[in-house]
């Protein structure tokens, strides 16, 4: 039924109202459901290690530290400086290891290789290892994510 000056029939109007109501209801249920299924996972902004732990590392060796749920590697370079990496392969996420004798990072999953500065030099990895930013404040070695103040 349609009134003379109306834009819709009564059925269109009711379907529109009901459909809109149903759509809004569905969205308001779906949104929290998706929130539940995809929990927030944030990487740590920073990790603090006591500097005394790393001071007496030998040159050209690495030390593990937990970077959130990923492993991190702190490397002491030949000139005594330090570099920190997220020790996760940029190919498909396997944990890498440092081979001191070859001066390379190695990923066993698909034979991925990185040189001692973390640059990908062999196998499937498409990008260098991710680096973290280091600073020493008093007794602490502070390891930060890039872009964090």
């Amino acid at each position: 039924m349609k009134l003379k000056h109306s834009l819709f029939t009564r059925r269109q109007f009711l379907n529109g109202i009901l459909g809109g109501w149903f759509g809004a209801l569905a969205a308001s249920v779906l949104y929290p459901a998706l929130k539940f299924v995809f929990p927030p996972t944030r990487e740590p902004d920073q990790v603090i290690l006591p500097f005394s732990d790393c001071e007496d590392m030998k040159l050209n060796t690495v030390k593990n530290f937990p970077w959130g749920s990923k492993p991190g590697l702190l490397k002491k370079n030949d000139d005594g400086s330090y570099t920190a990496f997220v020790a996760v392969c940029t190919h498909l996420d396997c944990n890498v290891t440092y081979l001191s004798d070859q001066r390379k990072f190695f990923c066993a999953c698909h034979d991925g290789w990185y040189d001692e500065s973390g640059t990908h030099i062999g196998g499937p990895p498409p990008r260098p290892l991710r680096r973290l930013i280091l600073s020493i404040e008093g007794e602490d070695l502070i390891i930060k994510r890039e872009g964090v103040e």
Partner: protein
Amino acid sequence: MSSKGQKMGLRSWLDDRLGVSAVFGFLRDKKIPQHRHSVWYYTGSAILLFFAIQMITGFMLVFYYNPTLEGANTSVARIMTEIPLGWIIRSVHSWSASFMIAFVFIHLLSIWITKAYRKPRELTWISGVFLLLISLAFGFTGYLLPWDDLSLSATKVGTDIPRSIPVVGVWVTRLLRGGDDVTGDTLTRFFGFHVSILPLFLLTILAVHIYLVQKQGMSVPVSDEKKGKKLKELPFWPNFVYREMVVWLILTGILFSVAIFFPPSLEKAADLMAPAPEGLRPEWYFLFLFQMLKIFPSKILFINGDTIAVLLILLGIIAFFFLPLIDSKPAEKKGKIITAAAYLFIVFAVAMSLWSLLS
């Protein structure tokens, strides 16, 4: 009243309420055509056998298995060493998974080659491809549950692969992992997929699949259809069912023999921070995909090589889904090429798998 009369009474009482005599009548009249390729008709019920064994042994494992970061590996170790006959149950579950997936592959390949997916059986095929994907998902999620170094790395790699799909990929990875990384949450989530979500999906689609097979009857290969002469037939009940039971008996014997002589191992519990172990390899049914990813160049004209590899694999799966629609002229040249593609696929998959095993 005589006891016979009572039985008849019970039967008709049930029939009045459930109407099962129509089903029995249907099965009594069902006929299985006999020809050169009839052996493939037995693969479907072999899958059913192994799935039934997976359900029974799976539910038993659930009694002792503990789906947490701290408990998973020790609970499987306990099943292997302390629980009476636990090692056999786990071994049968692990072997029967391989047997089931092997038969799903054989089943689908035989249908591809004999073109049993021809009109009107397109939906039967499509539901079958869903069942293949669900079976692979069962294998993939189950592999993580013992939670040792190998299963952890395999899962890290496997769940990272979707990430190279543009836009939606990241969300697929997060959905599978329950976060950005593989953690204890991933383990618990995989357990949920493995023991509740996937079984529900599989049973539902299996019901549709079996309904369609009954409704449409067994298909006859193109060559026999063309000849047009009437094929010999075997009554489904009892002749065919009895033959199937003999096949089941033999397969069960083989399954239990390998399960008892070659139980699966269990390495020490996975460490989220440890480097990936050497010799990482997925289960045999993922080997050819694994090898493809391994040999794909990391960059092809500025585009990430993995993205291309994954999109190619996706394209392959989509084409596989719609095979009956693509194969629109089964008896002509195009149909022959599509049959040849099946053999090509077999050679490709076997060659890639061997390459991976030998390298």
